[in-house]
């Protein structure tokens, strides 16, 4: 049932729609001619109107918060605010009717089929070349035509598994394809994330409007990849090959890997032996059957494609050639992304299917054809010029925006090497309402639609990723183009079935207890995540004990305690203000400023902000290994987020609050790790990182506080117990005044105290044993030897003797003991790296100089 527009008063002053004025001569998605709401939008607009500006503002805030919590980012290389930028999503979706979507999707289905056919021909019989439907200089001049991939076998004749089209709607209401993405098209993962967020903040609309689900697309993708596995195995191993954390869409790579249930790998994790691709794991080399790749064609294999690339796998092309692995999309599919190809599609479509291209591309001329060049010369000022073949090699140039002089220069350049340029007419994209903070504005829209090869045809993602921008030309085709994204809702005519990716598969899955299929690189990162988490926790506990003391009433002797605690905080010496009669107040102020610096100065190498950012950075690399909840907690460990107003010197109490918050988050993270991570190798490496770090911290603390002579030992003992979270245990156990030997026993030797060094050693020993057993090597390895040594030293030590002072009041024996014991942990860390984690030795190119006679 549709609701008549009469019920929505769009002209109501101060109402949401009162100021929404579409641009003249531009198609608006929501408002039709004469400002009437289009049928598709009526129901939604009514809901919006009821929500009002205040409600919408709330929704927008919620959207931002959810995205932030989920840690949705994309990387922008060289961006001033650091490479990781938060993903921005508009609170209003873009709506498309079922009828319109059906038209679009059958057109895109045809296009995907056509593009696949072109690849099959290009890398096979090359009939299009022989018939002149593709000019020889286009094919051979295209750096994306990879000769090494010619003749590669492809199961089911599917070259293009995943396809994305950039769409724009022109003023006449017609959609056009602006560009095709055919290597490892990105954006589908962001579309899912957008959907997850928007369906939560607009749940009522989402259900009432019967929005088509995205999951069927991914189910189809999984089915396609599984069925393409070259050897028929029940459980083919599919991996998602990412260019790594520095790539623009690493977030999405990790997200998709997790969503689809694939192992996220980088080039260095894979190796070719013989003609098989294998994954380097802790348990050895595991065969890989299908690679969903997100690395560009030319980077996939430094042996046969681009020499020197470190993103790919040497020998990969050969493994494909031997039919032992399937790469999706097939290598060489980047050929299709060339703008130069667009003018030839209509004729090729008629040639293959005797039908017209259902969805036209933007008008494009390839200057390599003399008649096209002539046209481009005659209409130069109206066109956009771009590289003919590799769209990434240079940004498009809007000719009318160039100064006169540069225009003729560009034209000269084109005339010199015409085949390297393509020109396109400008498309004025349609607009859709965007929430600007206080009102709705018409922003330009670009839509990225996705198709997946499935059972002999292509299925569309019912929705897509939309980018919006206040100006039409800043909307390029990259992920980062535009200012924001929008979810795309396809409104179904009938109720929509719920679909989940976790649906029961047709065939029973072979049960697996997470064996040792953990990539070595991931183990390495988990190990470091453990170390960073523990380091952060130790810091927070330590600085909290200082802050708490500062907020209490300070008497002169208290200053000395503070100095002592501050010295233990970092390795760098504390330079106190000098002078004969420095008043305690000045020293206090100095210490307070130090604390604030330590907490907030991100340029300080061992300060809290840099430790937290290392923690978040490492976590983001292994985010596919963390639960959604753990990841959300990690994202909240951000001082800017927890404490947006920054420090106030006169309100130290606030700092104590902040530190408690952080400690809660860190404990929550540890709790989740303990409670929800399976006890596989990944958990062991994370925990080993924690244990090593904790042992080192305790050893350092004890050494800082107790080796040098002190007038009064009591504050040091108190602090040690407090920082090591062991005061309660001590009091409970000894019910007595503080003394050094029992404190040393509790912090160093006691194997039942989870904070004691002895406990860490015991835990590490059990991890090392478990790893050794699973690697089927029963010899006592060097890790075991190191730990046995440490364990013996701890068990045999006499804490009374350690507490003895020499003639100068120094505890030399304690110092020596701590130094000896302390050496064990860096040694263990190195040994673990050597045994399990050595993996990323870069490969080098070897080319014969055979002709240099």
């Amino acid at each position: 049932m549709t609701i008549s527009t009469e019920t929505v008063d769009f002209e109501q002053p101060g109402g949401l729609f009162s100021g929404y004025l579409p641009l003249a001569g531009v198609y608006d998605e929501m408002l039709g001619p004469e400002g009437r709401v289009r049928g598709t939008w009526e129901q939604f607009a009514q809901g919006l109107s009821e929500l009002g500006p205040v409600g919408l503002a709330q929704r927008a805030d919620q959207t931002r918060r959810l995205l932030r919590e989920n840690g949705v980012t994309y990387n922008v290389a060289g961006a001033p605010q650091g490479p990781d930028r938060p993903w921005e999503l508009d609170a209003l979706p873009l709506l498309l009717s079922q009828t319109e979507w059906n038209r679009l999707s059958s057109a895109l289905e045809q296009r995907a089929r056509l593009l696949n056919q072109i690849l099959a021909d290009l890398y096979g019989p090359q009939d299009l070349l022989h018939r002149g439907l593709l000019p020889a200089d286009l094919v051979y001049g295209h750096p994306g035509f990879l000769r090494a991939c010619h003749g590669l076998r492809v199961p089911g004749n599917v070259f293009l598994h995943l396809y994305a089209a950039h769409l724009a709607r022109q003023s006449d209401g017609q959609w056009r394809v602006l560009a095709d993405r055919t290597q490892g098209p990105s954006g589908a993962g962001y579309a899912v994330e957008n959907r997850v967020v928007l369906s939560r903040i607009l749940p009522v609309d989402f259900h009432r409007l019967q929005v088509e689900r995205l999951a069927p697309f991914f189910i189809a993708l999984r089915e396609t990849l599984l069925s393409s596995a070259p050897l028929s195995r029940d459980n083919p191993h599919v991996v998602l090959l990412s260019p790594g954390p520095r790539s623009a869409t690493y977030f999405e790579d990790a997200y998709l890997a997790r969503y689809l249930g694939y192992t996220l790998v980088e080039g260095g994790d894979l190796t070719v032996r013989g003609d098989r691709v294998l994954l380097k794991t802790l348990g050895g080399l595991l065969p890989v059957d299908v690679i969903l790749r997100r690395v560009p064609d030319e980077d996939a294999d430094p042996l046969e494609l681009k020499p020197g690339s470190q993103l790919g796998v040497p020998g990969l092309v050969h493994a494909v050639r031997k039919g032992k692995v399937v790469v999706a999309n097939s290598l060489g599919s980047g050929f299709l992304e060339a703008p130069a190809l667009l003018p030839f599609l209509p004729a090729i479509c008629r040639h293959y299917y005797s039908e017209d291209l259902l969805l036209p591309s933007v008008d494009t001329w390839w200057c390599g054809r003399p008649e096209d060049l002539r046209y481009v010369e005659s209409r130069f000022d109206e066109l956009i010029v771009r590289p003919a073949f590799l769209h990434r090699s240079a940004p498009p140039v809007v000719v009318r925006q160039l100064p006169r002089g540069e225009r003729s220069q560009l034209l000269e350049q084109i005339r010199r090497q015409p085949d390297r340029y393509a020109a396109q007419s400008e498309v004025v994209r349609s607009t859709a309402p965007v929430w600007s903070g206080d009102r709705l504005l018409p922003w330009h829209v670009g839509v990225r639609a996705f198709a997946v090869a499935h059972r002999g045809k292509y299925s569309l993602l019912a929705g897509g990723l939309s980018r919006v921008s206040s100006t039409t030309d800043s909307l390029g085709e990259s992920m980062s183009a535009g200012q924001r994204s929008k979810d795309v809702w396809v409104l179904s005519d009938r109720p929509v079935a719920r679909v989940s990716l976790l649906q029961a598969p047709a065939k029973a899955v072979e049960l697996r207890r997470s064996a040792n299929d953990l990539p070595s690189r991931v183990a390495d990162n988990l190990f470091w995540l453990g170390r960073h988490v523990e380091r952060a926790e130790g810091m927070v506990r330590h600085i909290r004990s200082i802050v708490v003391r500062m907020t209490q009433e300070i008497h002169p002797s208290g200053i000395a305690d503070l100095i002592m605690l501050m010295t233990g905080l970092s390795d760098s010496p504390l330079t106190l203000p000098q002078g004969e009669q420095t008043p305690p107040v000045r020293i206090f102020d100095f210490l307070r400023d130090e604390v604030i610096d330590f907490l907030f100065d991100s340029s300080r190498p061992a300060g809290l902000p840099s430790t937290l950012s290392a923690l978040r950075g490492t976590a983001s690399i292994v985010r596919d290994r963390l639960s959604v909840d753990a990841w959300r907690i990690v994202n909240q460990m951000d001082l800017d987020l927890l404490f947006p107003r920054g420090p106030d010197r006169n309100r130290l109490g606030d700092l104590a609050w902040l530190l408690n918050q952080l400690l809660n988050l860190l404990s929550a993270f540890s709790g989740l790790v303990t409670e929800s991570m399976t006890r596989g190798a990944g958990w062991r490496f994370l925990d080993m990182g924690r244990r090593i770090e904790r042992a080192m911290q305790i050893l350092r603390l004890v050494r800082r506080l107790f080796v040098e002579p002190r007038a009064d030992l009591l504050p040091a003992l108190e602090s040690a117990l407090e920082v090591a979270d062991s005061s309660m245990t001590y009091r409970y156990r000894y019910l007595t005044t503080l003394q050094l030997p029992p404190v040393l026993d509790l912090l160093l030797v006691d194997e039942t105290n989870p904070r004691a060094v002895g406990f860490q050693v015991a835990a590490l020993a059990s991890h090392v044993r478990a790893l050794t057993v699973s690697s089927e090597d029963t010899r006592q390895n060097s890790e075991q030897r190191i730990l046995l040594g440490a364990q013996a030293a701890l068990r045999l030590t006499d804490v009374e003797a350690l507490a003895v002072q020499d003639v100068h009041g120094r505890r030399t024996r304690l110092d020596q003991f701590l130094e000896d014991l302390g050496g064990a942990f860096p040694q263990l860390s190195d040994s673990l790296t050597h045994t399990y984690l050595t993996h990323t030795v870069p490969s080098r190119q070897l080319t014969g100089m055979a002709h240099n006679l």
Partner: protein
Amino acid sequence: MLYRVSHETVYDYGESVSLCHNQAHLIPRTLDYQRCEACELEISPSPPRIDPWQDYFGNEVRYFSISEEHRRLSVFVRSVVEVRERPSFQAARVLGWEDVRYRLAHPVDDECRLAVQFALPSRLVRCSSDTAEFASVSFQPGRPLVDAVIELTSRIYHEFRYDPTATTVNTPPSEVLRKRRGVCQDFAHLEIACLRSMGLAARYVSGYLQTEPPPGQQKLIGADASHAWLAVFCPGWGWLDVDPTNNQVPDTRHITLAWGRDYSDVCPIQGVVIGGGQPAMRVAVDVSVC
């Protein structure tokens, strides 16, 4: 002529190599005037398998990888090749070079379409105004293509000095042109660049020369290693080989291994290694008449 060719390549690594992947263009092509009677590839350490395939240009390629730790890789090929007289190129003399240029710009048959890839710039052969200028001296209007090419070949032979120290694998043709020095590979690349800048198609040919000259003839340059020259496209006739290093139109003393757009398409052994430090490489070639 029946030749016995042996070609040994040895890489000595400073550090041990844990894994290498290689492909070799070391098997002579089979042509109208050339037949490979036997060919044996011996690799040490011995790889578990050697996979044969043919590349886009129809060259024989061998792929192998070694995952056994090693400090030395040696690749030894022995082949027996029969080379017959090539057809006379007199018939090709009727082609004017501008006509060939036109046919490549407007290809109407498969022969010309396939040749287009050899008329375009490639990884190691970029055309420039210098190469065009140098070439244009020999390409007067209306001149037969073959005559112009033979003259260009002879000019490179006479005006350039053979000097193994002047260049590396990656030296671009424009620099060779400036220095007037180089080795066979540079001269081949330069002449290819010259021809391509005139709108013609030229391909890089890698191969060998007969080591010991027939009685009474001079030993040719490049006889103790692998050699390189080029071929120019003559539509309707075929490809005419020319050797600028020796100022010759190759005949039975040149043995063809492989061809491509430039050296990078037909590099005798190319590989990716993990480890290895600074490798030292040795090549020994021997070609004798059976």
